[in-house]
């Protein structure tokens, strides 16, 4: 049974349609990345799936429960963590955990057991007596995640969980997510970071109320039309990269070229195969260190898809 099934979800606010008939399926244990520009309907979708915003149309099942029929049962089954880490700053780490446990109707020995389990899992033993407001951003985030996990939810919604967190803490959070997803917890994550999108096992891209891409990161990169027809992408690492860029741009078969760190990303006509191109560059004095074919980045994919959809919208 799938963890989340959205079937033709619609949400209207008066005349404005925020979510316009989206469908997707998330399997148990997946880390599902839900991406899209601000205002494209991500938060509205989360609110509908969490059972706090009624659907205007379509159906949604979370952990097998129909959200429209029984939103209360859904709320008891899921965890939710927003970018604001809804912790009580003046309560200690332990008190925050206990409060959220009680909110989910956990009491007595069962509550203590769950708390011990979570404390060990998020590794927060050292700070138990500290007020949440005095924790660093990374620890707040771990605590918020711990609070959302106390009642053993099967599905966890994370709305931009890493906004404003330093890279080390981000990395640690993702490690934790992988570990938890290994235990069968399903994650529904929104993010603006492309490196995080790469780590998701399943992605969907929403653009102004419509899902315009759905698949694994690898599938999305191979979508037709992201790389223009009869062209391919190359990553060329060279000694003097600016000089190399100048030379590469003079070759007619190179449609575009940009610098990424110490290498050049180039879009090349199929008419000019890789060997021929390296020869031409070597002839013009470029010291090539490495050449490899490149898939488009997820950023390329989303930018391309957004522009295409925008053109469709403008044409309509």
């Amino acid at each position, binding site marked *: 049974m799938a963890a989340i099934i959205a079937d033709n979800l619609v949400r209207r606010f008066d005349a404005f349609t925020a979510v316009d008939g989206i469908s997707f399926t998330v399997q148990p244990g997946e880390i599902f990345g839900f991406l899209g520009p601000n205002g494209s309907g991500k938060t509205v979708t989360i609110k509908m799936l969490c059972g706090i915003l009624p659907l205007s149309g379509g159906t949604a099942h979370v952990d097998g429960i129909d959200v429209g029929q029984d939103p209360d049962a859904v709320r008891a089954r899921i965890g939710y963590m*927003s970018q604001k880490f809804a912790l009580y700053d003046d309560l200690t780490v332990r008190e925050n955990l206990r409060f959220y446990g009680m909110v989910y109707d956990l009491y007595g020995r069962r509550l203590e057991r769950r708390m011990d389990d979570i404390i060990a899992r998020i590794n927060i033993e050292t700070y138990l007596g500290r007020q949440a407001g005095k924790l660093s951003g990374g620890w707040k985030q771990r605590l918020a995640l711990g609070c959302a996990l106390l009642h053993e939810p099967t599905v966890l919604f994370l709305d931009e969980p890493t906004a404003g967190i330093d890279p080390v803490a981000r990395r640690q959070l993702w490690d934790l997510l992988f570990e938890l997803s290994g235990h069968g917890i399903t994650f529904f994550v929104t993010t603006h970071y492309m490196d995080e999108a790469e780590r998701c096992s399943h992605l969907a891209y929403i653009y102004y109320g419509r899902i315009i891409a759905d698949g694994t990161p690898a599938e999305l990169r191979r979508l037709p039309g992201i790389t223009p027809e009869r062209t391919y992408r190359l990553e060329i690492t060279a000694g003097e990269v600016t000089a190399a860029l100048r030379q590469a741009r003079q070759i007619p078969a190179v449609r575009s070229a940009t610098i990424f760190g110490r290498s050049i990303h180039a879009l090349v006509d199929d008419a000019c195969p890789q060997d021929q191109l390296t020869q031409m560059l070597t002839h013009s004095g470029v010291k090539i260190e490495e050449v490899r074919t490149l898939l488009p980045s997820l950023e390329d994919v989303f930018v391309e898809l957004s522009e295409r959809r925008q053109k469709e919208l403008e044409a309509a």
Partner: protein
Amino acid sequence: MNPMLGFRAMVYKEVLHALRDRFALIFAFMMPLFQMVILGFAVDTNVRQVPTAIFDQSGLTSGDGTAGSSASREFIDRLRNADTFHVYKFVHSDAEMNEEMVAGRARVAVKFPPEFARDLLRGETAQVLVLVDGSDSSVAGQAVTVTGQIGLDESLRRLLGEQAARPIEVRPKIMFNPASRSPNFFLPGMVAILLIFVTTMLTAFSVVREKERGTLEQLLVTPVRPLALMLGKITPYFALGVAEVCALLLFMNFVFEVPIHGNPLLLTLLSSCYLFVNLTIGVLISTKANSQAEAMQLAMMIMLPSIFLSGYIFPRDNMPWIFFGLSYLVPATYMVNISRGVILRGAGPAELWLDALVLFVLGVVVLLLAVRRFKSMIV
């Protein structure tokens, strides 16, 4: 699903918040007591020792050149003997008299015209002009009454002779507050107003704070029921309110020596209905307000009508009918009646059950409104 799911969690958390911020808690608790001290000592509605200027021209006609006449002096002595007036100055012209009044140094000025003594001697009606500063209505009212009284008394004495018995004597007896002490009248009513601070304001702030921090959004995604959330929020403040009632009553009784004629336990019990309404109003405000500043303004909008319409300061019987009607919607109206009833009149449940019932019903209605608004806020 259990409609009170999460209630215990909310109470647990609110108590922790309150204990963490002990200073704010103590401050909230002490503020009404301070206010009671200030008002209890400062407010005295009994008008006494009103500064009075005298302009006596009546001596001019007697020809001896000195100011005043024996007749006017008798009248002035009676003014002096009345506790209401304090004769602080004799003036010598209309201009000077006017200036004393305009400058506010004199609240009352009494002028004996040149003909005063002559008219009296001739057996004609002699006139005394009494100027009263109308900027304070209770002073003005008292001055007019007392000078009128003195005039009437003097007239009777002159007509009937010194020793003659008056045909009718009126003997007023002020019940419940025989000494006419202001604290006795003011403090019981004030309890109703002061309690708004620790109830309506504190609850309104506490929910709005969660809105501002984003924790409310988190609570909405949990299975906590709106009713449980609200009752959990108000329960600790209810306890605080009951403690405040006890503290105010003790203070009133021991510091200001206002005797409690009825049963203090009954009063505490009946006030709990009032506390309940105020707490629910606080929650209702918090469903509307998005910031603490906004909540503060809304709470003020509730408080001012409570002060003016409840009968705490201005008697309700004198209000135009529309305000009189509105005053029935103000919870403080019932509390002022309960408080004065038990403390001053020694009233019991038989007299006050209706007030308590109305408060309880108001509380339930406001709570249901708040729950409804809260549910629509989620969506």
